[in-house]
């Protein structure tokens, strides 16, 4: 299917009085917002029945630009708020935008337990490997040896892999792409939005201002190229494994796509049995 012009996205989904966005030159967050809105448009999702939820961070500013109801909540708590919204009014489509710090550090427990409960929400995590908003501190996703303002000599802590976490805890839909994969991102966000249960899409995104600058990675063009080179598609990766080879590259693609009864369905059944 072909792609539509941005004017449709801007007119229908964005708060024009808020534009241009506050994001730095070449920041990947705007791209992820564009991909998500295109997925929503393709699926004809009713914005009157949709709530966007976020925590705190540059990534968490996304709902503020979208012409829909939203909750810009507390740092790390987006998924907790989203769970509340979904349980209070299961008719609503609930979409979370969260940074890697918001989702994996301070919000890590909410992330784990919403997956465990299989709450029917879609979480889009913008992973720029750093705390962008607060000036570039180390995040739990920061790769080994990377420089941040709090690891000026290089990071010695092993990073966590958000998508793999989502997978092992049992999320029924997990995909990871980079901002340099617009077509795949849109397609995965569409699948995530259609999945009943916890769906997770992680998008690796450049933060040229903090992560890029501190690690001398150049501008967003260089960073985008680096993302393409430092990732490997799951299909290729599985083939490599079968051939007895391995790689340090980060695996991208559709990582999980299964059916699994969600929390609301279980809850309703349970209430029915009690009657």
């Amino acid at each position, binding site marked *: 299917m072909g*792609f*539509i012009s*941005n004017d449709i996205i801007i007119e229908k989904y964005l708060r024009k009085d808020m534009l241009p966005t506050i994001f730095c030159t070449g920041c990947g967050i*705007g791209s992820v917002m*564009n991909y998500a809105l295109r997925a929503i448009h393709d699926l004809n999702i009713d914005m009157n029945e949709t709530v966007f939820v976020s925590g705190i961070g540059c990534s968490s500013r996304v709902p503020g630009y979208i012409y829909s109801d939203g909750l810009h909540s507390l740092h790390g708590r987006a998924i907790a708020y989203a769970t509340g919204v979904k349980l209070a009014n299961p008719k609503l489509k609930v979409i979370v935008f969260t940074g890697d710090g918001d989702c994996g550090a301070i919000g890590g427990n909410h992330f784990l337990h919403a997956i465990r409960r299989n709450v029917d929400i879609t979480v889009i995590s913008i992973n720029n490997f750093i705390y962008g908003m607060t000036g570039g501190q180390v995040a739990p996703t920061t790769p080994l040896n990377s420089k941040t303002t709090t690891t000026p000599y290089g990071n010695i802590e092993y990073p966590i892999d958000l998508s793999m976490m989502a997978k092992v805890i049992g999320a029924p839909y997990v995909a990871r792409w980079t901002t340099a994969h617009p077509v795949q991102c849109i397609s995965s966000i569409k699948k995530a939005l259609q999945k009943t249960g916890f769906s997770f899409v992680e998008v690796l995104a450049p933060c040229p201002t903090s992560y890029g600058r501190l690690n001398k990675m150049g501008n*967003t*063009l260089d960073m985008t190229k680096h993302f393409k080179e430092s990732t490997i598609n799951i299909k290729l990766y599985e083939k490599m494994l079968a051939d007895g080879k391995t790689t340090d590259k980060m695996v991208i693609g559709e990582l999980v796509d299964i059916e699994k009864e969600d929390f609301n369905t279980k809850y309703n059944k349970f209430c029915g049995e009690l009657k």
Partner: protein
Amino acid sequence: MIHVNTNYCKGCLLCVEYCPKKVYVKSEKLSKKGVFPPEVKFPENCIKCHLCELMCPDFAIIVEDKDDK
């Protein structure tokens, strides 16, 4: 028609890099925002793939397309 909104454009040049038909070049003139926006140099080469609009993080490009719904 290709429109570049120089009020939204931050000069990252992803559009220049990723257009498969090399429609854009970096402008030599600063925009009023203080960046070098893309200049639509070869519009006749555009195949309306919309990749530039997808790659632009700032919703700054509109490629007019009569097929849009």
